[in-house]
């Protein structure tokens, strides 16, 4: 009985913050929003910390390098070969190698998402991949996409202004948004437009004339096709006078980026996007303004913006719990982590995420994945249920194992060490009470599956 009472103190959905720590509900919320599906040991660890301590631990512990070793081929950049110099067989072979490398690259990153000791780093690397998008089908170089990923991870929690300057000269980006071929004679406006619309100011805060002149300023930023490194081609650069957002001068690309960074709208645009990622789909404009001001005051330190955001009352408000739809990666990585699936083929995970609409290194367009409720239409919802059924079916009696899965219900239950493992499992898997409460007479595996198939499991 005492045990039971103690359990309710710890597990009640409206558990108040004890002096000892934030408690399980808050820990779940913090970890689910900043990582990919928290595990029971992680939740327990954070439950003992205060909210501020938990946030500090997340922000200071984050690594800047992946722990998963990348495929060996990333070390060498193969210069592109003109297709006309190759026989049809050689062309086919090259395409095959590229496809295989693309697959290995995705397996590498998703493995890192699953294994990273500091999931926030991967969460933010993915956030920036979705902000400063580039896509392998157009960039066509797995090595350059890998290098961009390393760049995004390196700056994931550091300085936004530095990241913007670096990404603008990133070879994959120069190819993706046609910067590499932007020259004085007839400027290519692709990068200039997207840098204003999507990366900094947001739509409505610049004019067509700004795009045209910015495109001229970026002329000459290109890449050395032999090394795959950034290079400046003075002969391609338009050194003339440009007018950007009312300022006139002989601007180059860096000067344009600085002008964009000096606009308060840039900070607000990024903070609004962070809000939608971490809190809710409807940013509170007054709070956005406050956090954006702090973001600028702290010289675009991303950690500072996140600290502000995660410590805000809105982040912790009960109205914002369980209101975000899990992304396909939240879903497939989280499911592996929460069921402790160790032997699941990462190829399969990559493929499933792609089928659910999130193929890393290939966002649908430069705006990235739209997210929110758009993740869950009829097709995606049904597919998610199918994945739950396949992955949680492992080691069930009478079911021959088609795949190498290892979900084992008994050790999984043992991790809770609690009188009522059902309540604990619900706490681990769902942000809110389920819509379809599993009947107590069901077998353990049926209870777990019912929780995973509940609509509430799709939320974080």
């Amino acid at each position, binding site marked *: 009985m005492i045990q039971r009472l103690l359990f309710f103190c710890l597990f009640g959905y409206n558990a108040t913050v004890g002096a000892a720590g934030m408690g399980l509900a808050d820990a779940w919320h913090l970890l689910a929003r900043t990582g990919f599906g928290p595990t029971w040991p992680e939740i327990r660890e954070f439950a003992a910390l205060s909210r501020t301590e938990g946030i500090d631990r997340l922000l200071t512990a984050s690594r800047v390098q992946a722990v998963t070793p990348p495929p060996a081929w990333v070390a060498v950049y193969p210069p592109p070969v003109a297709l006309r110099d190759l026989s049809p067989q050689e062309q086919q072979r090259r395409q095959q190698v590229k496809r295989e490398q693309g697959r290995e690259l995705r397996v590498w990153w998703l493995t890192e998402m699953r294994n990273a000791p500091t999931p926030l780093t991967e969460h933010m690397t993915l956030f920036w991949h979705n902000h400063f998008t580039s896509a392998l089908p157009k960039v066509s170089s797995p090595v350059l996409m890998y290098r961009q990923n390393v760049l995004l991870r390196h700056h994931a929690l550091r300085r936004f202004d530095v990241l913007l300057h670096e990404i603008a000269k990133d070879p994959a980006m120069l190819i993706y948004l046609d910067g590499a071929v932007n020259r004085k004679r007839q400027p290519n406006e692709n990068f200039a437009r997207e840098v204003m619309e999507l990366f900094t100011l947001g739509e409505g805060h610049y004019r067509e004339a700004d795009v045209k002149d910015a495109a001229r300023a970026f002329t000459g930023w290109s890449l050395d096709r032999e090394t795959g490194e950034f290079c400046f081609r003075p002969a391609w650069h338009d050194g003339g006078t440009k007018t950007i957002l009312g300022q006139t001068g002989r601007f180059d690309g860096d000067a344009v980026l600085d002008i964009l960074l000096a606009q308060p709208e840039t900070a607000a645009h990024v903070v609004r996007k962070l809000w939608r990622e971490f809190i809710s789909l409807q940013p509170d404009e007054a709070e956005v303004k406050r956090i954006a001001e702090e973001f600028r005051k702290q010289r675009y330190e991303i950690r500072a913006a996140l600290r502000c955001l995660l410590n805000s009352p809105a982040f912790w408000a009960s109205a914002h719990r369980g*209101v975000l*739809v899990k992304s396909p990666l939240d879903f497939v990585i989280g499911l592996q982590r929460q069921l402790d699936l160790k032997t699941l083929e990462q190829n399969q995970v990559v493929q499933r995420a792609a089928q659910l*609409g999130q193929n890393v290194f290939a966002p649908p367009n430069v705006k990235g994945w739209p997210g929110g409720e758009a993740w*869950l*239409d*009829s097709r995606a919802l049904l597919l998610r249920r199918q994945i739950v059924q396949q992955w949680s079916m492992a080691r069930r009696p009478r079911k021959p194992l088609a795949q190498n899965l290892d979900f084992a219900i008994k050790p999984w239950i043992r991790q809770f060490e609690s009188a009522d493992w059902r309540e604990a499992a619900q706490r681990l898997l769902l942000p*809110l009470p389920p819509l*379809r409460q599993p009947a107590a007479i069901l077998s353990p595996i049926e209870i777990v599956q019912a929780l995973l198939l509940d*609509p509430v499991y799709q939320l974080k």
Partner: protein
Amino acid sequence: MKRRTFLLTLAGAGLGLSPIRSQTAAPSPNRLLILIALKGGNDGLNTLIPYADPRYRILRPDLAIPVDQVVKLSEQEGLHPQLAPLREVWQAGELALVRGVGYPEPNLSHFRSMDIWETASASDETLTTGWLARCFAAHSPPANLIAAGVAVGNDAAGPLQGSANALTLTDIALFQQQARWLGLAPSTVPPNPALRHIVDVENRIRQAASQLKRGHRFETTFPEGPFGRALRTACEVIASRKRASVAVVHLSLPDFDTHVRQAPRQGRLLRQLAEGLVSLRAALRELGVWNEALVMTYSEFGRRPQQNANRGTDHGTASIQFVLGGSVRGGFHGAALDLTNLDGNGNPHFVLDFRSLYATVLEKWWGVESRSVLGAQFETVKLI
């Protein structure tokens, strides 16, 4: 351009506009709309080519299609060579080429402009629901309709966005197999919007799965590739119409953003489009519903007449759209773009507002009033 001036321009240009007809009725379940989004901004000038206009070649020294390759439809204009399969539809009088379609104060952002097209908003107005979602909200669909619209493929629902009665699927057989595992509907509707969305989607799946018929055998062969597969699924959905009516089917063909080396990519895409449209026509004729079908393309914008230094084109404005169907009045509609009169960005001015196409669908095809959906009264086009 102000709306008043725009309407006068249209009247002056003699575009064959008919007087407004206003009725209030539900969209007829027998009249099907098939929308195809050409995503990325298709270059209209190299789709329907003004081959006799010398400025075309001046603006596009590398990109202009040689005269002898153009599929000539008139003394002035002809189709891109890869659109040659459409010649038979044209000759049957079932292909309308709607020229100069755009809107005032065009926005050159892919996303914003696509939003404008799919929500049918003005350039400076933000709407959150698609124009078809609003149509079905205003004119509740008949009871025998299982879904106002079905979006086929991996794409967002576009103009059906925000409709409580739209479905997304890629394959009917898989859809039904999966629907069987859904279990019972929850008894209460949750207040959390994300959760409510999931419950709504589940309920729609249960209903549709019980009514769609899978595996219709077509004589028609569909093209290989994702677009061909989406067309096949679309035709299977349509084949189920006796039991399970849908009013709209939405598909998309992406990849039209041709800033660099446009020619091979646009050619490949136009070939897919033409072959796809021809197979769609054949399949719908096979089902006996070609006269009840209206197929319409849309794209967020055309591309700039002047090619860029990379043998590509940057974001433009007004463009050509296709409308096909057994009841369609084939031929040229709208008016050719004036390449001597370009705006400050080097783009042509539109001659026909895209919302006139929507008004035509609403009023002439479905016989419902369009003002409440489109926010203003737009002239209809004599397409049907």
